[in-house]
């Protein structure tokens, strides 16, 4: 006997399952698999690969990359646990493999390899030599398959709708002999025959168009829960049963008036609810459009240099340390560092930054961004699931699957909602039957059915998650990665933003800012001499002067006799002239009379800048200042935060003078200077103790505790990985405008959630009593079950469409053109 699930030979001691004496199982796993779906394994021998298994490893959760040296493969053809061992040993035998793990359930293999080895082809070969098929995993979670299934479901629902709708027309016509002309008289044999036909066709409508109501209701019932399907299934079948009984056994109802039929309710409600489901399905597909767009950004192929020849290979095959060639107009396939050439790269799809970024040797490039002008080669540093895009996709997917705190409350209500509606329907029935006008039974049936049909648990259930999906997706489109529903919901109540200074408000690297000249010297001359003298220096201040000179288009000369005195200055000979660069004491030591520069030095120092005196051939030539400069859009972002009524605090380990100088430039109102790195979190805590809801924004490892302490931690995407892990939000572009965008997006999303929730609650709390007929004693108004069906079908569509309105949301600062 063979195990039908894994194909292993099993003996008498095999596990069995009731009702299938012909099969036995090797393990509890196989047995559970079989019980879950016996049909799938019934003709196992003829078709050893089940179709369901073709979807190997569509989710990455089980085997997320551990480091850049992991390779992930999808392995097909494994039928049982012993296959796992075979594949693992085949993979482990490949030279260079440190460890290989195979996951049977996901059909994935994770192979740890020594860094930089090109092993993918060898691994694939090893797996096929062992008798299985393998391919490298991409990040695409089989979107096409899922989309195809959605499409098919949508088309089926539409067909079901058309059938129910076509049946509805004659059914409505013949249901009202008093209203429509040409209908045989009530009680006549002709009409009774027609009604008999209607009973049959509406049964077909329920059985086919409405089949999912009954299967859905039944499977929920087995789990002791009830849902929308339960309500609709009871509603339409109650209407049909009553009508059929009235038709077949008229003697059962003594009064003539009771012998009425409501086949129209069954047909029309089915048609409307099925149409609503179809529309909802389509609208819901749009809520995850942002994620699909991200997945679509991935490059398909890459041109890599192997054995000195350029080869075009699928992007999944690119390995760390491959040199990749990129031509103008091409998509950069993976993350890496430029090794030669240069170009402008459009990174807007990842960072939201509309201006192309210049890249030269040593700059890092991001996969999925587009090379605009030049050609270059880069060394791959992150591939497969480790690329920035892959991580963004995973982060967005995780965030979309998280819950906002507000939803936890809604979930509690949802658990009681459907049974409560069923009780309301029973109470309605009893009330009408006891106190209602003649014919009381008809009124009781109709109002109870209307109550069942109008209640819409889906509108409540969909209200929060759909808005969240769109909001988080919208964030990703604008370079704002929000990690959870919690962060998204909290961000809209933020009243204090704490900014780390270096790397957050400022660029985090010194730049040449001021030049003051003395005597006959010009600006360019002073900069040329100072920068040439510094050209051999590796000091960051020296590098700032050199790049400042290059930015002015100056060609530097070589420096001779270079001498550096740490903490004081340098001297060197440039074009035969003796150049001295340093502080006042250094000038005095080298015999440069620089007393007149003292006032300028103090002034620059007050602005938080590092100023140096330049002496040429023993004469005072000028003063140049270097400082960490403010990012271009910091001022606008902080102004916008103030407009939103948010207090902005800057926190830094730097001295008060420098900190306050920067704060003045950008308009920050409160400065916490000389804060030790370990005290940043304490400062955030102190602000929280003042009753403030604090967002902390930082980029460094030392910001991580403060990011975690804050109500919302926002990490600069240009900063360290540690900061990004501690943060709730990552601002990919590394600009302060991102904070504004994140807060605005949170406000917009939460407003949308509130609209949805208020709408859904109001709809249900008003709709159910009206359906029950509370207006009848006062105004004589009774809701038709047909109208109730229409209202129900479109209430959930309305909720999803409202969530989709968020797709049109735009950040205000981009609109004003500030970051352009």
């Amino acid at each position: 006997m063979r195990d039908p699930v894994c194909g292993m030979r099993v003996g008498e001691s095999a596990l069995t399952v009731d009702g299938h004496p012909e099969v036995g199982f090797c393990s509890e796993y196989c047995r559970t698999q079989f019980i879950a779906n016996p049909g799938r394994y019934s003709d196992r021998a003829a078709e050893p690969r089940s179709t369901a298994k073709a979807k190997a490893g569509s989710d990455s959760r089980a085997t997320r990359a551990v480091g850049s040296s992991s390779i992930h493969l999808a392995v097909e053809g494994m039928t049982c646990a012993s296959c796992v061992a075979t594949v693992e040993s085949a993979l482990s035998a490949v030279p260079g493999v440190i460890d290989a793990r195979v996951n049977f359930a996901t059909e994935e293999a994770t192979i740890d390899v020594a860094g930089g080895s090109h092993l993918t082809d060898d691994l694939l070969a090893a797996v096929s030599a062992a008798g299985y098929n393998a391919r490298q995993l991409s990040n695409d979670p089989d979107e096409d398959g899922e989309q195809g299934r959605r499409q098919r479901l949508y088309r089926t629902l539409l067909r079901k709708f058309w059938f129910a709708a076509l049946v509805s027309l004659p059914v409505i016509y013949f249901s009202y002999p008093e209203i429509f002309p040409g209908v045989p008289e009530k009680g006549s044999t002709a009409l009774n025959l027609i009604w008999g036909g209607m009973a049959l066709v509406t049964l077909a409508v329920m059985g086919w168009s409405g089949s999912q109501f009954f299967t859905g209701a039944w499977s929920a019932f087995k789990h002791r829960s009830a849902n929308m399907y339960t309500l609709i299934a009871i509603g339409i079948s109650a209407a049909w049963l009553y009508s059929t009984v009235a038709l077949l056994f008229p003697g059962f109802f003594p009064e003539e008036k009771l012998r009425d039929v409501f086949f129209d309710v069954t047909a029309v409600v089915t048609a409307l609810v099925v149409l609503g489901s179809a529309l909802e399905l389509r609208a819901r597909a749009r809520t995850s459009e942002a994620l699909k767009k991200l997945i679509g950004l991935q490059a398909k192929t890459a041109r890599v240099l192997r054995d000195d020849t350029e080869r075009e290979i699928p992007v999944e095959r690119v390995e760390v340390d491959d040199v990749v060639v990129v031509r103008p107009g091409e998509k950069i396939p993976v993350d890496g560092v430029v090794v030669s050439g240069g170009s402008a790269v459009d990174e807007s799809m990842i960072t939201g930054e509309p201006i192309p970024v210049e890249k030269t040797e040593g700059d890092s490039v991001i996969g999925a961004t587009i090379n605009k002008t030049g050609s270059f080669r880069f060394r791959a540093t992150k591939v497969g699931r480790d690329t920035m895009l892959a991580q963004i996709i995973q982060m967005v997917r995780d965030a979309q699957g998280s819950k906002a705190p507000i939803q936890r409350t809604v979930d509690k209500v949802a658990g009681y909602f459907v049974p409560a509606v069923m009780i309301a329907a029973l109470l309605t029935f009893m009330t009408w039957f006891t106190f209602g006008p003649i014919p009381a039974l008809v009124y009781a049936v109709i109002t109870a059915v209307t109550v069942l049909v109008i209640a819409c648990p889906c509108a409540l259930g969909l209200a929060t998650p759909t808005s969240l999906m769109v909001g988080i997706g919208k964030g990703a489109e604008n370079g704002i990665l929000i990690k959870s529903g919690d962060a998204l919901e909290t961000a809209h109540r933020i009243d204090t933003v704490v900014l780390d200074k270096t790397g957050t408000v400022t660029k985090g690297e010194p730049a040449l800012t001021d030049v003051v000249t003395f005597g006959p010297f010009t600006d360019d001359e002073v900069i040329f001499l100072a920068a040439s003298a510094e050209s051999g220096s590796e000091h960051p201040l020296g590098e700032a002067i050199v790049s400042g000179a290059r930015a002015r288009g100056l060609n530097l000369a070589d420096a001779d006799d270079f001498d550096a005195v740490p903490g004081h200055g340098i001297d060197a000979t440039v074009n035969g002239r003796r150049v001295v660069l340093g502080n006042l004491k250094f000038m005095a030591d080298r015999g440069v009379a620089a007393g007149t520069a003292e006032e300028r030095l103090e002034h620059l120092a007050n602005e938080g800048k590092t100023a140096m005196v330049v002496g040429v051939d023993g004469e005072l030539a000028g003063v140049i200042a270097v400082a960490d400069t403010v990012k271009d859009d910091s001022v606008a972002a902080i102004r916008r935060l103030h407009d939103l009524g948010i207090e902005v605090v800057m926190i830094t380990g730097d001295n008060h003078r420098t900190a306050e100088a920067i704060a003045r430039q950008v308009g920050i109102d409160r400065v916490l200077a000389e804060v030790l790195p370990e005290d940043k979190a304490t400062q955030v805590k102190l602000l929280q103790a003042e009753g403030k809801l604090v967002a902390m924004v930082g980029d460094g490892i030392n910001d991580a505790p403060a990011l975690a302490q804050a109500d919302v931690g926002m990490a600069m995407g240009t900063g360290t990985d540690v900061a990004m892990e501690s943060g709730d939000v990552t601002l990919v572009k590394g600009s302060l405008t991102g904070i504004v965008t994140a807060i605005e997006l949170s406000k917009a999303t939460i407003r949308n959630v509130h609209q949805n929730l208020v709408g859904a609650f109001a709809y249900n709390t008003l709709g159910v009593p009206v359906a029950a007929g509370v207006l009848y004693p006062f105004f004589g108004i009774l809701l038709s079950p047909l109208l109730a069906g229409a209202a129900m079908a479109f209430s959930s569509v309305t909720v999803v469409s409202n969530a989709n309105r968020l797709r049109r949301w735009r950040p205000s600062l981009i609109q004003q053109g500030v970051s352009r």
Partner: protein
Amino acid sequence: MSAVIVNLVGLSLIGLIVWYFWLSKPQGSLAAVGSSGAQEAFIVVRGGYSPDTIQVKAGRPVRLVFNRQEADPCSEKVVFDAFGVSADLPEGANIPVEFTPSEPGEYEFACQMGMLRGKVIVS
């Protein structure tokens, strides 16, 4: 007379609903959890989770493999709010969800809309 009967039947139906959906403790099918390495269970998704109650031990990794066997989009995501993990469940595929519970207690998992529910009992 008939009103009395109808009302009595109605009231008892209400009682049944309250008992069936709210009061009665579903026995739930407890997943057999292996003793080696991760604690593993296979869960079928069709109108609900079978089994819907999983008993595990604290401090050891848990691995639940979901297989969604229906086209209804309501169940296309499973969310473990307490552990901050979620997964998309394409129809017919085995999708593992992994987490390590540290504290004993009852943790709910549900679809995105909170209509389908199950729980992990950590002891």
